């Protein structure tokens, strides 16, 4: 069943200037993006910084204003809902933020941090609330006594788990994870990723995974979309994207992944050089005169590429 369907989503930010600070032009951060998320799957959005992947994620939680397009969540178009109308959906769509060091309020206790979304939607006595929070802390592998501690008393991985516990309290259906592990060490990263997989099974969650680390995305996602300059340039299952990249940008991205095998690094460097040359030469073939990627065209049932 389709849980989320994004249709031709556009998020444009105005550039003001000139006389009376009128709108001169727009930054087309997201410029016509469409994809679908099945229930229980993990969809990855990859791209370099500035490609609009985070903006897409934020637009779905309505942290950004949507310029045009549809966001169908369980069949309802929530793109133009007012903040009052959107409120019930806020329960179902939650977000995990990138940097666990700056996304937790340093002045609040863990109890208050995790209970905040709960307090917005449900009424509980302090005793009940404490019990619920301790349950969730237990689930994310933190000691239930830590509710009276402050964020600075935890390590990076633990903090990210507090962030995850906060997003779980309302039993959401969709979680948007905006680079949840990019600020963490490999060992801690492994911990958080495993843990996100466990939670997915337990709560039947659907993830929209935004990131730039292709190793992580490949590990986590069933399907993925590659974004470049606010447009999707390729979409398909992780296998298709990694083994058979079609768009020149995807090829370049895949070629840039560092390999753990030092004996092939010279070959890889040469291959990378080749792809980068090909990228320079055939850029006009893959993008129109305005430098905009073409619309996605299916080349197999699951694999779609932006070709003219």
């Amino acid at each position: 069943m389709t849980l989320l369907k994004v249709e031709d989503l556009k998020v444009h930010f105005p550039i003001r200037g000139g006389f009376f600070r009128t709108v001169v032009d727009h930054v087309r951060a997201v410029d016509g993006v469409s994809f679908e998320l099945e229930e229980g799957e993990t969809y990855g959005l990859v791209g370099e910084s500035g490609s609009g992947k985070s903006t897409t994620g934020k637009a779905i939680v309505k942290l950004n204003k949507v310029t045009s397009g549809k966001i169908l969540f369980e069949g309802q178009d929530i793109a133009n809902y007012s903040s009052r109308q959107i409120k019930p959906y806020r329960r179902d769509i939650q977000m995990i933020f990138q940097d666990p060091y700056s996304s937790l309020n340093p002045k609040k206790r863990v109890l208050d941090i995790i209970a905040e979304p709960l307090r917005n939607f449900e009424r509980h006595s302090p005793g009940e609330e404490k019990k619920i929070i301790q349950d969730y802390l237990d689930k994310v592998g933190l000691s239930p006594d830590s509710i009276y501690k402050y964020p600075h008393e935890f390590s990076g991985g633990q903090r990210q788990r507090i962030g995850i516990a906060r997003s779980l309290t309302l039993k959401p259906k969709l979680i948007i994870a905006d680079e949840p592990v990019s600020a963490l060490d490999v060992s801690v990263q492994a911990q958080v990723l495993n843990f996100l997989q466990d939670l997915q099974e337990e709560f039947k969650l659907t993830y929209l995974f935004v990131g730039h680390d292709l190793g992580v995305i490949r590990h986590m996602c069933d399907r993925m979309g590659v974004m470049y300059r606010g447009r999707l340039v390729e979409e398909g299952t992780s296998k298709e994207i990694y083994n058979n990249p079609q768009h020149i940008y995807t090829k370049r991205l895949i070629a840039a992944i560092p390999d753990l095998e030092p004996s092939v690094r010279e070959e890889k460097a040469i291959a990378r050089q080749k792809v980068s040359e090909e990228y320079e030469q055939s850029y006009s073939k893959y993008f129109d005169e305005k430098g905009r990627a073409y619309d996605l065209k299916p080349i197999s049932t699951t694999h779609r590429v932006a070709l003219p």
Partner: protein
Amino acid sequence: MFLYKYYTNINENELIETFFTKLLKSSQKLYKLKLNYQKIIYFIEKVVIKLGGTSMEKPIIQIENLTTSFRIKDHYHAAVDNVSFSVNENEIVAVVGESGCGKSALALSIMQLHSKDRTKMEGAINFKGKNLLPLNEAQLNKVRGKEMGMIFQEPLTALNPLMMVGKQIEENLDYHTKLSKEQKKTRTLELLSQVGIPYPELTYKQYPHELSGGMRQRVMISIAIACNPDLIIADEPTTALDVTIQAQILDLLKSIQQKTQMGIILITHDLSVVAEVADKIVVMYAGQVVETGTVREILKNPLHPYTKSLLHSIPSAITDKSRLHVIEGIVPSIAKMDRVGCRFKERISWIPEEAHEHSPELHEVETGHWVRCTCYQHFHFQDEKGEMITHDIT
């Protein structure tokens, strides 16, 4: 490339030059050909460098038993504990480990950027045959920035937001060279184009916030190489960058290094970056070196449990969906660390106590491959069966 050698190693060049004038005078034939000295010297140097790069090993920096302790409530705790390694000319040595393992503390110790009244440093840092530890601030300033450059992790915080990029590069030249204003500018523009900035003239006048992350990191690199240093310490140079930009920056570092024959200490937690560029690896855990060797050796045949665990926890693009290995527990804080016995003991609790040495030392298992503690012989992952690895320990 050759010009660098001229600026820095005048003594060497003088020697070679006198040698060649004698040689030229003795052979009239060559004299008649009227060959340019410089051209001949250039070729000879090239040959010497080529030979030197492969057969002769010339250490630029030798760190011997370096211990850096920080004062916390009247007690000194060692964050870098008895670390020794060396970097040769034309070599990239990677220092890897989780955060809190003392990698950055080590980098700052080599540059001696820790505040003096809170830190105690012991051991020796022999940089080009001279120990840097006893030097005072003024003497150090002559070395830092000139012979030793540093690339910091976060270019946006390391660059001055109120200063034009070009001026920031010139600052280094101001301090260490006696170039005129015009010369400085030409050198700066040269540096900017060397690090692959497309419009050096334009970038010269820009401020850091106007540049993208990759461009800022390129500016950082150009500051570090401004005075043709012999050693560069790169503290997580690509952590804040995207994969494509990361690949570009790594390729850039590598090409600069090949041109100038300098040594690089690369501090990172990303083992795939290490595999991509480094020649030697130093794995640090809780302030100590736990394993060291060549990249090929360590990535193919990792021995210490910590190295193995780190390698297992990477979601590699090659392996398919499966569970990642998680290292139990966290890196101990320096104040609470148990300094006797194997420091990795708590995180591999399923390995019996007898497997660890009482006071773990580095053992050479193969030439150039050193491992701390004997626990690696008995180590197995929790879900695997134990199998004894035997090596002749010397």
